[in-house]
């Protein structure tokens, strides 16, 4: 089963990369951008087939390694 994990800085935590990219877009003349937030996408191919079990397992992965929950949120999508 394929799993898509998105990791993003929490709302309210300033994103320096997003800010820099936002600024660069402005320099290129893209003035209609209100905000930019940068995160990462992690694609997993897991052996399990039961959606519930896989989601529980991936949640543990996020808590223990994939995200730093002090500053990051994550979402899990089963594809």
């Amino acid at each position, binding site marked *: 089963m394929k799993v898509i994990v998105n990791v993003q800085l929490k709302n309210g935590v300033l994103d*320096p990369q997003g800010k820099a990219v936002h600024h660069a877009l402005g320099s290129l003349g893209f003035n209609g951008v209100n905000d930019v937030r940068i995160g990462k996408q992690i694609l997993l191919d897991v052996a399990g087939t039961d959606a519930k079990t896989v989601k529980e397992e991936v949640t543990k992965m996020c808590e223990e390694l994939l995200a730093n929950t002090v*500053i990051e949120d994550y979402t899990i999508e089963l594809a």
Partner: protein
Amino acid sequence: MKVAVVVFPGTNCEVDTKHAYETLGQEVELVWHKEERLPQEVDLVVLPGGFSYGDYLRSAAIAKFSPIMKEVQSHAKKGGYVLGICNGFQMLLEMGLLPGAMKRNANVHFVSKYHHLKVENSTNQFLRHLTSGQIINIPIAHGEGNYFIDETGLTSLRANNQILLTYCDAQGNPQNPNGSVANIAGICNEAKNVFGLMPHPERAIEALLGSKDGRAMLEGFVA
């Protein structure tokens, strides 16, 4: 005193750190991260600077799972001294031995230069040879030194005198090279046996290197 300096794939400050403590007359052993035991009767464990595991995923995200880290955890829990410098500080945050987290520098640049620091609290083993309010000058070299902690966490750091060092200019006015909350450059845990800082004291131990302000810090652990 016996010092263990832990080496990970991608660590690059272990030799400087070893040299610094040997200059101070101490016995130093480099310990590969795959080891499961720290040297017998070790007094201080140093997690040195570098780019463990190439900073993959996040700085220090993977190093915390190395076999030796269980021993480092238990050494810290028993009250043993642990010092994390730069990448080592990031490890201590990832391991939960120190509160908060590290983000990319606010200006998104890798910052490598001498920077002035203000000693905020010297009532601990690490900074006991310095005085609160003293201004020192020590190199920084990092891309992710933008320390983050929430308001509650910051309040408790302040209440327990856990803020060790803040970034400032030569006169002691706040000056922030990386966006760090409250200009924080280094902190310790509540029990004051685990210390983490972004600046590199081991690179400032001789006048020839431009500063020997780091020497007094490292000496703090020497009996």
